[in-house]
């Protein structure tokens, strides 16, 4: 059987499984729709959280990104796992004790203010939509590359599946499908990783394999550093970026992780405070399986790439090169006209490839059969453009693994994208039906009315997400930094202060959130959209890139919030009592 047949089998049967689970776990009340009736076991919640958290970016994108960044890629590894320690120690148990359904709920009650609640609603919706756009695009890429269906059709199929289980099942349906999706995605991630590790280092555990030796008896990492130098790249195992920038990006990703509403909301679904604590541990353990394999995959992929492609003539290059060229994710421009692929540091041309085509739509090809690109030239001699996103998806092909492994990776990528999309859509729907409708506009709404509103909001959010996936705005990648910066500079400080300080009040929260948000937004918008040509270390504030600026926004939020709280009157007594009660697991 070929790859495509295997892919249809894996994708089809995993989709059928998700829908079956959705029917089995339909939500019948708002409590079930928002927080799965608070009856999820800690291990199941850990798995669901892991699937919720690990998105198309973690599954498809991260290892590829690391393989191009080398040591600097560790900011993602530490940033996206370290946040769980903060979540477990500073947020999860207390928010579970609070027990209401959403993050804006907590902000609204703790700061006795509808304004604060509305600011939180806007942040939650913005962060979630930013993220969802990326997931749907991931779905589209997998469908177009492996099933050769149109991206639009791929996104519509994905939407249909998410629609079924998110709208029917709410949090309950999402939780149990996420458990299944975790199993699918981790299996799909580990199988090729184990194969690669065996091939390159002769060790079945990738975590150990990339510290092992290759067939020639050389350390895998030393061999890679050697290849990097030969081709004119910097060392793989040493940092290139400035220390302050690495620390700030890591910190912003950690704090952003801890402030993401779709992750926080998962800790409302368990029965007790102690279950919330332990499910954070399970979640990180399940996440760590993938996150400790990713750097190994990055090293194997980079080694494979550097050993097999540079110096080859285009005609003799491995077949995956032209396959991904057809998907628009690889391009080769023969600067020196010798027919061989010269790969070194620097860009091959300006921007992402835009291919030349004949008037009838057929691609225009050069003398070696390569697709021609019309992008402007840049200085430098590098001839190869490789989209970082393809490394994980192309890995099984690069390593020559059997077709079913390649198909498995496609199903895993879809599981990662769909599970995250569903979690995000639930945040949007509960923000609309619970916080806007029930909390602000129509407090008298009946339980059934609210449940119907939640379903309509979820349906609407799915359609919006699909549209964003079909017509992806150019700035998707740019706004991901935004989602984390925003979560770090808005939610994290006010939630932490809301728990650990009885003096922090409404005025402090509103001023703090606003200052943190405005500063972070302004900085990112300036460097990403208004003045992108100055987006480099010479112009950055203290040498901190837009990806890491959330840290400064967060500090600003803390400082202005505490200052304003000190100058205004303390919170009312019932709020102080609320704070006391969320600090104690039992009683009260």
């Amino acid at each position, binding site marked *: 059987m070929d790859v495509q047949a295997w892919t249809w089998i894996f994708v089809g049967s995993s989709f059928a499984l998700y829908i079956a689970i959705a029917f089995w776990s339909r939500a019948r009340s708002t409590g079930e729709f928002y927080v799965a009736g608070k009856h999820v076991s800690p291990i199941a919640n850990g798995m669901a959280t892991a699937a919720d958290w690990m998105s198309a970016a973690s599954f498809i994108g991260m290892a590829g990104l690391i393989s191009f960044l080398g040591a600097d890629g560790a900011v993602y590894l530490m940033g996206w*796992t370290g946040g769980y320690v903060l979540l477990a120690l500073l947020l999860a148990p207390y928010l579970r004790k609070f027990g209401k359904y959403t993050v804006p709920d907590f902000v609204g009650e703790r700061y006795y203010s509808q304004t604060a609640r509305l600011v939180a609603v806007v942040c939650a919706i913005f962060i979630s939509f930013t993220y969802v756009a990326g997931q749907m695009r991931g779905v589209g890429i997998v469908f177009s590359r492996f099933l050769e269906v149109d991206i639009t059709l791929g996104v519509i199929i994905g939407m249909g599946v998410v629609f079924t289980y998110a709208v029917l099942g709410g949090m309950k349906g999402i939780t149990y499908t996420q458990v299944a999706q975790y199993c699918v995605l981790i299996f799909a991630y580990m199988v090729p990783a184990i194969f690669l590790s065996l091939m390159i280092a002769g060790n079945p555990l990738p975590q150990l394999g990339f510290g092992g030796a290759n067939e020639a008896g050389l350390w895998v990492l030393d061999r890679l550093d050697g290849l990097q130098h030969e081709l004119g790249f910097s060392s793989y195992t040493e940092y290139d970026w400035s220390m302050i920038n690495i620390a700030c990006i890591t910190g912003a990703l950690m704090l952003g992780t801890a402030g993401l509403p779709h992750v926080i909301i998962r800790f409302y679904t368990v029965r007790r405070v102690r279950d919330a604590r332990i499910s954070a541990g399970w979640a990180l353990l399940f996440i760590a399986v993938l996150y400790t394999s990713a750097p190994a995959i990055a090293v194997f992929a980079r080694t494979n790439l550097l050993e097999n492609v540079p110096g080859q003539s285009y005609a003799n290059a491995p077949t995956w090169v032209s396959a991904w060229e057809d998907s628009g994710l690889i391009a080769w421009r023969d600067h020196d006209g010798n027919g061989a692929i010269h790969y070194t540091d620097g860009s091959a041309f300006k921007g992402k490839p835009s291919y030349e085509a004949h008037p009838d739509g057929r691609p225009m090809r050069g003398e070696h059969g390569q697709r021609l690109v019309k992008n402007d030239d840049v200085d430098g001699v590098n001839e190869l453009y490789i989209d970082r996103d393809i490394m994980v998806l192309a890995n099984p092909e690069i390593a020559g693994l059997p077709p079913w492994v390649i198909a498995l990776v496609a199903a895993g990528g879809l599981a990662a994208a769909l599970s995250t999309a569903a979690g995000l859509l639930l945040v949007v729907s509960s923000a609309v039906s619970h916080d806007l409708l029930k909390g602000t506009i129509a407090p008298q709404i009946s339980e059934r009315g609210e449940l119907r509103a939640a379903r309509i909001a979820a349906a609407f959010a799915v359609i919006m997400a699909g549209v964003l996936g079909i017509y992806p705005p150019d700035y998707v990648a740019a706004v991901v930094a935004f989602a984390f910066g925003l979560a770090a500079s808005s939610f994290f400080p006010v939630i932490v202060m809301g728990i650990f300080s009885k003096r922090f009040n409404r005025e402090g929260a509103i001023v703090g959130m606003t200052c943190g948000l405005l500063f972070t937004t302004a900085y990112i918008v300036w460097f990403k959209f208004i003045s992108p040509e100055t987006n480099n270390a010479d112009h950055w504030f203290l040498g901190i890139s837009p990806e890491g600026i959330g840290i400064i926004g967060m500090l600003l939020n803390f400082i202005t919030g505490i200052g304003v709280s000190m100058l205004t009157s303390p919170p009312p007594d019932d709020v102080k009592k609320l704070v006391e009660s969320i600090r104690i697991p039992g009683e009260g």
Partner: protein
Amino acid sequence: MQPGDRHRAYFKANLKVIAVLLAIWAFVSFGCGIFLAPWLNEFRIPGTGFKLGFWMANQGSIYVFVLLIFIYVWIMNRLDRAYGVEESD
């Protein structure tokens, strides 16, 4: 002890646990994984090709994060019982 005093003492103990665990958290990630990494890279983990700083950033810090949460859970469950604030089933 009055319930109020007991709760305050419990929360104080809780804060101490958080402070110690977060200090370790910061030391392995920002310390060993980032600021000390270039220096740690002069050493290798015996029997492997890993430079120590690179390994801490790519692997070691993540293992410690997982351990920290499970240690936290274990300590807190004991504290809950010691101060009589555990939840009923």
